[in-house]
C-alpha cells in the first residue's frame, strides 16, 4: 500500500506539467494568504474597542461625572444653604432664649391681680368671677343677688319691670359666668402655647410643619372661643338696648295714661 501511494505521488508529479504545477502552487498559496475576511475581522474588533472606550469615556463617563457633581452640589446645598445644622441649632437656642427671657415677664404680668372692690360682698363676688374656676359658677347667682338684690317682689314692682330686672340680671350673670369659663380656657390655651414653644425648641425642620399645624388648630379653637365671648357681648348689648326701648315704650304709655287722667280731671272739675 505504501509503495502504491509513493508510486501514485510519483506518477502525480510526473503527470502534472510544469505549468500545471505552478498553477497548483499558486492556488495553495492563495488559500494560505490571510484572507480579506480575516483582515476585515481585526478591523471590526479594533473599531468595536474604539467605540466602547469612547462611549465609556464620553457619554457614560461624562454623564456620571456630571451626576457626581450634581449630587455633591445638591448635598452641599441641602446641608449648607437649606438646612445648615449650625443655623438650626442656633435657631433652637434662639427659641430657648426667647422663652427664658419672656416667660418670666409674662408670668409676672399674668399674675397681677386686678381686684378692686373694698366692701365684703363686692369683694367676694369680684373674687369669684375673677377666679377663672368654672366649678364656682354655681355660686355666682347667690353672690350676685347679695350685691345687687333679688328681683323685686310682685307687689312692689309691675310685672314688666320685674321681667326687665330679671332678664338684665340674667344676662349680666350669664356674661360673668362666660367670662369665668373664658378665663379658664385662656389658662389652658396659654399652657398649650407653652407646650408648642417647648416643642419648637426641639423640633426638626421636617417636623416643624406638624407643630405649626398644631398651633393653627389651637388658633382656630381660640378664635371659636373668642366668637363665643363676642356672642355674649352681643347678648348683653342687645339686652341693654331692648331695656332702653322697653323703658321708652313704658314712658309713652305712662305719658298717655297721664294725659288721659289730666283730661278727665279737667273735664270734671
Amino acid at each position, binding site marked *: 500500500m505504501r509503495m502504491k501511494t509513493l508510486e*501514485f505521488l510519483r506518477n502525480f508529479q510526473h503527470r502534472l506539467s510544469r505549468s500545471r504545477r505552478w498553477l497548483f502552487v499558486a492556488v495553495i498559496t492563495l488559500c*494560505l494568504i*490571510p484572507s480579506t475576511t480575516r483582515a476585515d475581522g*481585526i478591523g471590526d474588533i479594533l473599531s468595536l*474597542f474604539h467605540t466602547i472606550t469612547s462611549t*465609556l469615556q464620553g457619554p457614560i*463617563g461624562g454623564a456620571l461625572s456630571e451626576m457626581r457633581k450634581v*449630587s*455633591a452640589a445638591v*448635598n452641599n446645598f*441641602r446641608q449648607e444653604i437649606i438646612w445648615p*445644622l449650625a443655623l*438650626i441649632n442656633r435657631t433652637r437656642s434662639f427659641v430657648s432664649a426667647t422663652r427664658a427671657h419672656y416667660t418670666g415677664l409674662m408670668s409676672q404680668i399674668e399674675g397681677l391681680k386686678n381686684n378692686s372692690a373694698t366692701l365684703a360682698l363686692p369683694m367676694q363676688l369680684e373674687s369669684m368671677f375673677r377666679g377663672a374656676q368654672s366649678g364656682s359658677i354655681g355660686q355666682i347667682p347667690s353672690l350676685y343677688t347679695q350685691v345687687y338684690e333679688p328681683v323685686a317682689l310682685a307687689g312692689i314692682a309691675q310685672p314688666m319691670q320685674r*321681667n326687665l330686672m330679671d*332678664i338684665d*340680671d*340674667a*344676662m349680666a*350673670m*350669664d356674661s360673668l*359666668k362666660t367670662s369665668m369659663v373664658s378665663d379658664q*380656657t385662656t389658662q*389652658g390655651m396659654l*399652657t*398649650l402655647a407653652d*407646650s*408648642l414653644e417647648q*416643642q419648637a425648641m*426641639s*423640633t*426638626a*425642620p*421636617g*417636623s416643624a410643619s*406638624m*407643630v*405649626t*399645624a*398644631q398651633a*393653627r*388648630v389651637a388658633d*382656630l379653637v381660640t*378664635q*371659636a*372661643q373668642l*366668637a363665643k365671648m*363676642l*356672642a355674649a357681648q*352681643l*347678648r348683653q*348689648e*342687645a*339686652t*341693654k*338696648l*331692648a331695656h332702653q*326701648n322697653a323703658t*321708652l315704650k*313704658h314712658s*309713652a304709655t305712662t305719658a298717655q295714661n297721664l294725659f288721659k287722667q289730666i283730661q278727665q280731671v279737667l273735664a270734671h272739675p
Partner: protein
Amino acid sequence: MNRPTLSRLWKFVRNAGATICGVAILVALLPSKARSQLGLDPCCAMMSVGLNSISGLLRSVVAQPLGSIQQNQQQSANFEQKVVFPMTAISQARNMAVQFEGQFVQMRQLFQLPISSATLRTPQLLEQSLLSGNPGAMPQITSNYSALYGTVMPPANAPQSVRNMVDMTDAEAQAAMKKAVETDALANLELQAAEQINQQLQTAAPGSSPILEAETAAWLVRANAYTQSAMAELVRVRSIELANSSGQLKFSASHAATLQTTGNQVLQQGVQ
C-alpha cells in the same frame, strides 16, 4: 480480476483520494483553523489589550463616580433622617396632638356648662332661646322678645317719629340676639372642626401636615370672617344706641320749644 476492472477501480480510488486531499487542504486553510494552528494569534493580544482598557475605564470612569454618587446619596439620606426628619421629633409632634385633644375636649365641655340665670318665666324663655346656640330657634326669639319687651306702641300712644325709633331699636336688639345665637352655633362648628383636624394630626407625616395646616388656615380665615360679622353687629347695636340718645335729645328740644310756645300763649291770654 481482469485488467480493465482493476484499472477502473484504481481510477476511482485515485479520484476519491484526490477529492479527500482537496477537502482536507481546504479545511486546513480555513481562517479560524489557521489561527488556532498558528499559536498565539495577534487578535488575542489585541482583545486582551482592549478588554484591559475597557476594564480600566469601567473602574475609573464608571465605578468611581458611581461610588461617589452612592456616598453622596448615603450621606444625604443620613442627613435627612438624623437632622431634617428625625423620627423622634415626628413622634413627639404626633404625641403632642394626642395631648392637645384632651385639652380641646375639656375646653369645649367648659363652654357647654349651663349658665342660664333667669328666674321668672318670660325671661327664662328668652334666655333659653338666646343660649341655645340653635339657629332653628330664631322664630322663638322674636316671640319671646315681644313677650318680654312688648311691641311698638299704638299710634295713639306716641308720635310716629317715636314709634319709628322704637321699632328700629327693637329690630336691632333682636338682630343682635339672633347674631349671638348664630355666632355661638358657628363657634361650636369651628370647635368640632378643630378637634377633627387635630385627630388627623395625630397620624400625620411631615409631608401631609402642610395640607392640614392649609385646611386649618382656611378655617381660620372663615372664623375671622364670622368674628368680623359679629363685630359689625355689635357696631350696629352701639350705633342704634347712639342714635336713640340723639333722637331723645331732639325730642326733648322739640318738647321744650312747644312748651315755651304754649306758655307764651297762655301768658298772653292772661294779660289780655
